[in-house]
């Protein structure tokens, strides 16, 4: 067992350039992935990849944020910060999942919702708010996994799930440690210190019951993918025992605790 990382080291690892990419995750976990585009309202945001695929034999809806691998992708996705069009696409695909009784699997790695002028004018707040409410009427199993950064409302929008999982090297926080330090001490260079205070590591969040499971992150990506796939299959089988109404009631009870 490796020595326990400090919060600042976990932040670094969560943002590492070696972090598994969204496309590698999707290709490694699912078969038959068909990407579906657009919010049916005038836009399509590449920062959120959505589609249908098979997990094992079972059709699932996949919704994932992506930071992009090429320079062009990084620019187009604002380094993985979704715009309202992306959140509306996610909502559309979640509703579609409910219609066809498909489980929902979200994969999250975003510093947060994109703080752009168009994003504001197109209702970033409203788009996230609609997703937060939607978890009330999705009678299908829903598992969210944060595999890098889980930045505030922009991550929570995709994580109002039955189970919320985090990779060993990931964070989930109300704002960035830099933002926290600059508000608190007017010095964003003290981000490392802030990270220690913020309780944003998987271990802290597991203690606080904000998340349910920590996914080990071996350097061997095949092992990582195999293990995660097995866990998803088991948990989805487990959740599928419950009726839609039971799932919703359990989900409400989970968040009512906070």
């Amino acid at each position, binding site marked *: 067992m490796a020595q326990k990382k400090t919060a600042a080291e976990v932040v670094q690892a969560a943002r590492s350039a070696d972090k598994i990419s969204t496309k590698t995750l999707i290709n490694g976990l699912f078969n038959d992935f068909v990407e579906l585009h657009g919010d049916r309202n005038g836009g399509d945001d590449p920062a959120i990849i959505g589609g249908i695929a098979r997990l094992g034999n079972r059709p699932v809806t996949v919704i994932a944020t992506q930071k992009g691998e090429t320079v062009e992708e990084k620019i187009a996705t604002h380094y993985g910060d979704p715009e309202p069009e992306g959140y509306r696409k996610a909502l559309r695909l979640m509703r579609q999942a409910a219609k066809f009784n498909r489980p929902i699997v979200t994969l999250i790695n975003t510093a947060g*919702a994109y703080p752009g002028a168009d994003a504001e004018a197109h209702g970033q707040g409203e788009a996230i708010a609609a997703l937060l409410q939607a978890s009330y009427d999705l009678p299908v199993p829903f598992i969210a996994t944060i595999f890098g950064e889980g930045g505030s409302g922009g991550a929570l929008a995709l994580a109002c799930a039955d189970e919320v999982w985090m990779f060993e090297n990931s964070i989930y926080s109300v704002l960035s440690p830099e933002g926290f330090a600059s508000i608190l001490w007017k010095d964003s260079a003290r981000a490392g210190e802030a990270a220690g205070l913020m309780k944003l590591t998987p271990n802290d969040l597991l203690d606080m019951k904000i998340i349910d499971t920590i996914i080990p992150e071996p350097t061997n990506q095949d092992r990582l993918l195999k293990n995660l796939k097995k866990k998803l299959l088991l948990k989805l089988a487990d959740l599928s025992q419950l009726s839609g109404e039971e799932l919703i009631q359990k989900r409400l009870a989970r968040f009512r605790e906070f």
Partner: protein
Amino acid sequence: MNLFKKKPYVETHPHRQPERHFNQKVPDNMFIQCPHCKEGAYYKAFGAFRVCPNCGYGMRLKAQERLDMLTADYTPWDTDLQTKDPLNFPGYDQKLAKAQAATGLNDSVWTGEARIAGANVALGIMDPFFIMGSLGTITGEKITRLFERALNKKLPVVIFTASGGARMQEGMPALMQMAKISQAVARHSAAGLFYLTILTDPTTGGVTASFAMQGDIIAAEPHTLVGFAGRRVIEQTIHKKLPEDFQSGENLQKHGFVDSIVPREKLGAFIAQVVRLNQPEEE
């Protein structure tokens, strides 16, 4: 006639500092500069509703002040809940004590049942003077209970939003309030009950991204700052200056996110009107 007498010119001394004794006799706060239009006016011109006589901007109000403007007929709920300080955040207890003393609230929202212009509602009023109206665990619990009680009593909910967003001193449990409240709003809504949000200055961050934007009807006071991200963050991101009124209720109305801009003095009548239209009381 004394034609050649020297005229009594005023003598000036260019290097002398003017003595402004007269200033000291004017009490503070007699003249108020409007934070929106920057015009100054005699404080009485702002009137009982504290609205700028020039542009109609309503000055920020403590929750109790706003409540007193709306009604004298109310019952507060959940005044005894206290935050558990989930991060053991240094200095947070002093900050809370100060905010509680300044506002008379246990956390950043007043909740209760009220009768406004004849309409019975479950009412929430966020207080921008309580740590910037930030959404903490107790704020979230009070608002959640507001919707739950309203559901049991079949009451409409009216919330005045004012917030800097999720409270960073409470970390992730504060963020979770957005989900918890949203689910309570959804349950209340599914029962066919009416929810009115009134955006007041400033409504931002996690509150904009949750219950502020979930009303069946969304109204705003004139010249209210409404947004998700902070202005400076946006400007640093896009490397451009934003227009002055970019994050205003008026601009959001143009983009389709606000139903109506309602002057403060008409809010009581507006609330009663839309509550009755949406939820006719049984005859």
